[in-house]
């Protein structure tokens, strides 16, 4: 939030959803703390919009937020949403506790790529394995933004970051593949360059009973875009700097391949590309809290 109170008090927001956000509602301010060109505003906006349109019950949809730049999203999401800012990477575990202690709930987890692929990888895997009824959004900006642009497990090959000053040489982690292997029942990937698709997936995830994982590729202009060329340093290709939000959104759009097209592409062609689309939707798989309720019933009746 830049300053307190509306910057232009007489100005009405163009967008009716802006005043629904926490700062919009409380302070009449609809600016954010995110850098110019950041994608998290789009995600917050869509969350708020879905929350308002679908009339989600705030008491049953706690928002569990991990640690990263995106943690500031709590100022921009719907004012009625109940939020808890957790430890780095532990959001899925906290959500598990919440869901099991109050099975009517459907926690919504916001996590970053460092959260779910790095420090909290284990929690992420086991959340998917249990098929606990919740929505996990993985924001992938392929960099550690909050600490100042260090390499992440999702950093693309050849990219530069402050801890990979020459180039990134590690293989990247793929949240979708991990979620699929671990057994999440709704898995999709989209980007902030496709906001309507994200909205569609998010609504679908809210209605799905089971673990839904949506990876959202989002730009970080300040620490990823400014330091990298859009060819990610590959020789023989002419690259241009991605130092504005527009350029990065354009790069993400170009770097994304729909999964129906990806089927006909070779591994080399898909290298460093984001395959987007829905990967799995299995609505009838047993859900953890439901299964536990059955166990409770057996135990209460005294059967063995």
């Amino acid at each position, binding site marked *: 939030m830049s300053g307190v109170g509306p910057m232009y008090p007489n100005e009405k927001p163009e967008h009716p959803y802006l005043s629904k956000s*926490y700062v919009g509602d*409380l302070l009449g301010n609809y600016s954010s703390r995110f850098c110019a060109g950041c994608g998290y505003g789009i995600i917050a906006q869509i969350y708020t919009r879905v929350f308002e349109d679908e009339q989600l019950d705030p*008491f*049953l949809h*706690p928002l*569990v937020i991990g640690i990263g730049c995106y943690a500031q999203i*709590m*100022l921009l999401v719907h*004012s009625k949403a*109940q*939020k*808890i*800012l*957790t*430890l780095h990477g*532990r959001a*899925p*575990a*906290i*959500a*598990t*506790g*919440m*869901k*099991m*202690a*109050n099975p009517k*709930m459907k926690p919504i987890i916001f996590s970053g790529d460092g959260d779910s692929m790095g420090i909290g990888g*284990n*929690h992420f*895997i*086991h959340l998917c394995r249990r098929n606990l009824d919740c929505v996990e959004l993985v924001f992938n900006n392929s960099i550690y933004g909050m600490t100042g642009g260090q390499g992440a497990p999702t950093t693309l090959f050849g990219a530069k970051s402050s801890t990979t000053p020459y180039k990134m040489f590690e293989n990247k982690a793929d949240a979708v593949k991990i979620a699929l292997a671990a057994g999440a029942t709704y898995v999709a990937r989209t980007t902030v360059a496709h906001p309507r698709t994200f909205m569609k997936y998010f609504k679908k995830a809210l209605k799905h009973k089971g673990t839904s994982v949506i990876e959202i590729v989002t730009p970080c202009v300040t620490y990823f875009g400014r330091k990298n060329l859009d060819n990610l340093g590959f020789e023989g290709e002419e690259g241009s700097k991605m130092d504005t939000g527009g350029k990065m959104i354009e790069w993400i759009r170009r770097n994304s391949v729909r999964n129906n097209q990806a089927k006909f592409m070779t591994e080399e062609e898909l290298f460093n590309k984001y395959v987007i689309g829905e990967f799995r939707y299995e609505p009838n798989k047993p859900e953890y809290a439901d299964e*536990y309720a059955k*166990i*409770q019933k*057996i*135990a*209460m009746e*005294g059967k063995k």
Partner: protein
Amino acid sequence: MISEKRFLQAGKHLMMGNEAMSEGAIAAGCTFFGGYPITPSTEVIEHLAKRLPEVGGVCMQMEDELASINAVMGASLVGAKAMTATSGPGLALMAETISMGANLEIPFVFCDVQRNGPGTGYVTEPHHNDIGFARFSGNGEFQIIALAPMNCQELYDLTITAFNFAEKYRCPVFLMSDAYLGHLHEVVDIPTREEILKKIIKRELPANTKGRVFSYKDPSTGEYVIPSPPIMGTEYCPGLFLHQPHGPDGLPTPKPIVFQEMLIEKITSKMDEISLTETYKLDDADIVIVSYGLPVRSSYRAVDIAREEGIKVGIFRLITVWPFPDEKVKVAVKDAKAVIVPELNYTGVIAEQVERVTKLETPVIKIPKVAEFHHPDDILKVIREVAK
């Protein structure tokens, strides 16, 4: 609705220490347990996996210790009484979240069945080596409460007390059991359902929660009166986020020291209620044994024999180990010629505390033991030497 199976039949039961503790938790109204098997605390999760579903609760075996304590915190956030049990290495992993729990002021009970260390150590041997760790069990400064039982009956009773303390003071409460106590079979006298229910502090929503700011201090007396913990999924939940530093008035504060002071003072100012101690033949004692947990049992016999020999010795027993009861210890050792501290560890964490309280004016004699606890003769020998 209270499940019929929540309370065992009143009367005597032969139980293992870890089971007694689990039953104490169930009686206290614990409905969520998140744990990861670790010797020697494994019987807790085994017992609760069977018992908690019977009373409509949830026992989850999580993927690791980090997940278990976080799940416990999540469950506590939505209004369940929750606990976890682990041993030293697990405690090390959980430290991050204990600190977070203290910051969020979320109640949970933490059972540490201590085993020998450092590292993996001799896993089935008792060793009170987490006493110091429990006090400083995380980053940042905060105050926890730690209770040290010495038999299976106390494991049952003190677990209920631990849950009450957690609810009342909104902080992590530790139960410092150990490998020997956890595997000891003893008779536990279970009180009746009515007696237990009378003791228990329930998690309840305060009246008229909407838009009301709950102060942490009674304006007339200036004493801390801690409001009941917020519950997510109800109206009694702060708007922005839970861990916002706040002052005793319940309002957000930009000054970290105000919050820091409150986190510690809300517990240390209530020493009268929190500090549980016991004495044995202390009234005319020249030599005072200060101890906690298993070594106290051995001290009883040592004191009895020494008294027969005409040595005036008594026991001051700490049930609440942390926060350390400075004032009470000061009074207990006031006229003492010497203080003996038999402790089941090498460094003597509590002995150091006693030294601090006595300002080194009274000699403090440590009896360190590692991975095996004191035989009465070990203590008696020292008593005789001191009495000379």
